[in-house]
């Protein structure tokens, strides 16, 4: 993707997201206010409140004016009000965001590093018994949906062995502090992170392995070998480093998959992040919250993708020559 098209692409992506978020509730049959605010709002609804909401969303005006009102409130950071939590949507999301960032960040780093490392080893020994075993194993692992992996880990380590807590992000009302608190948090995040890491290992692995196989045939590898470099230097410094680059282009896409993976895994472990919040919002039909989470997640993934696109030509100058 060259620079100009890039901006256009992201612009179109943002437009699609905003259009979905704006049109879906308004296209539903029945009172649009109900679809925008969900069942929970009915209980709190008074004629005055209703009048003020209709005015705020410009619901009595044309679709374009409604869209204008929607965009202007978005720009003021107003994602709406959750009647289920009785708090502004943005506050509810911000409360659970740190936990999600914690497990997603940790598993992104772990799965990428582990994937690259396994990919280098496997590609170096291509065609050997180890390589075949690793390839078959990781491809099968790829077939396990993240929530099933999470459930398996939960049953093995939580229920059968009892070494890990079954749910939550820390022991409630424990009054722990300092090191004990850190350990408690680590213990609670171990299984969700393990599930996410295992489920997303194969992407980095397969890509690194495939690149490794083509890099090993490159002329510079022959030169390096002819110079009499050690196997170690050949494997990591020459072949390995060059096989890592494509992985970086994919991190943005993988981040998107990890976010959706976290959604399911958090539900399995009742981990109080954005995914669990979404699940509860779906149960309660808390539409403002569902929409808020949707905007938040898609925007963050797009921004992450964009940063990767911007960063990559600096890491691999060959890319910018290509256009």
């Amino acid at each position: 993707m060259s620079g100009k098209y890039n901006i256009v692409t992201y612009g179109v992506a943002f437009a699609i997201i905003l259009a979905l978020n704006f049109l879906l509730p308004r296209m539903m049959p029945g009172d649009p206010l109900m679809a925008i605010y969900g069942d929970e709002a009915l209980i709190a609804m008074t004629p005055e409140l209703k009048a003020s909401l209709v005015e705020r969303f410009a619901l009595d005006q044309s679709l374009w004016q409604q869209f204008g009102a929607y965009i202007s409130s978005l720009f003021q950071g107003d994602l709406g009000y959750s009647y289920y939590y009785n708090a502004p949507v943005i506050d509810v999301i911000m409360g659970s965001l740190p936990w999600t960032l914690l497990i997603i960040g940790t598993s992104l780093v772990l799965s990428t590093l582990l994937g690259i490392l396994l990919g280098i080893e496997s590609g170096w020994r291509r065609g050997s018994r180890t390589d075949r075993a690793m390839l078959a194993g990781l491809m099968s692992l790829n077939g396990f949906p993240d929530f099933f992996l999470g459930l398996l880990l939960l049953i093995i380590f939580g229920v059968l062995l009892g070494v890990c807590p079954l749910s939550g992000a820390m022991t409630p009302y424990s009054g722990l502090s300092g090191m004990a608190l850190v350990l408690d948090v680590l213990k609670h995040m171990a299984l969700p992170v393990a599930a996410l890491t295992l489920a997303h290992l194969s992407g980095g692995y397969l890509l690194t392995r495939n690149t490794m196989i083509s890099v090993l045939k490159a002329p510079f590898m022959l030169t390096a070998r002819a110079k009499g470099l050690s196997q170690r230097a050949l494997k990591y410094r020459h072949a390995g480093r060059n096989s890592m680059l494509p992985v970086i282009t994919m991190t943005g896409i993988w981040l998107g998959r990890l976010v959706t993976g976290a959604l399911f895994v958090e539900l399995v472990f009742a981990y109080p992040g954005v995914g669990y919040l979404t699940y509860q919002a779906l149960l309660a039909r808390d539409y403002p919250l569902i929409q808020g989470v949707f905007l938040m997640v898609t925007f963050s993934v797009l921004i992450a993708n964009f940063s990767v696109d911007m960063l990559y030509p600096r890491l691999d100058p060959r890319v910018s020559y290509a256009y």
Partner: protein
Amino acid sequence: MHIDIKAEIKRSRAGRIGIALLLLIIAFAILAPLLSGYDPGQQSTDSLLPPSTSHWLGTNHVGQDIWSQLLYGARTSLLVGFGVGIISLVLSIIFGVSSALIGGLCDNIVMRIVDAFIIVPMVVVVILIAAYVKPDIPALIIILSALSWQGGARVIRAQALSLKERGHINAARACGGGRPYIAWRHIIPDLGPILLVEFIYGVRRAVFMEAGLAFLGIGDPMLVSWGEMMRDAMKFSYLDVWQWWLIPAGVMLSLTIIGLTFVSHAAETVIDPRLKGAEVA
């Protein structure tokens, strides 16, 4: 690209394992009424029974036979999977090939839209739509297809662009063949293995999404689905029931996806011969 793809897939062990797994699941789905004596939706007062000769995998919390739910669950999964696979493949071909042949502004616009869809996380979009629409199977197939043809269109367009420059296409054009004729007679048949890989990707995504949505509880509650089974079973994980309730549903789902992954891997090796000799033998 005149390769006998069937022979190539059969030659690789991954391909054979994958095809065997898929045939097994398809047999389960087709023979479900013969393999089980119970209606999967039939509730009874015998809830949470352990496995026995009458209920091979026991019963669930509302007294439904788990074995027959497992078999009929294969129907839901495969129906959604293959439905989405076919529809999104057709959409990919239409947009990919026409965009490559027409070129210019049209190509540019289609590709910008395709790229935009590729970077938006699809699962989150599907969840948002499903939360409002509460789709039944046909609606789910349409929603998933509409959101999953874009990646394939990109790959098919790239291949069609390179095919377009070949000699026999020029010859066909010189003989007066129009764009639809060239697309239908010359481009699409030569896309062979790529179409298979994209089709399997589509099926795999859809199988996963259907189970995921049911797991989140935003599928059709009347449907028998592996995701739904896992969601119900999860609530009883403190009992022993996970052994014959949760695990079989998860294993069936995983085997389906693994089967698809293995077949697509074997087919990918056909497309990219550089990977050859390094496959799972």
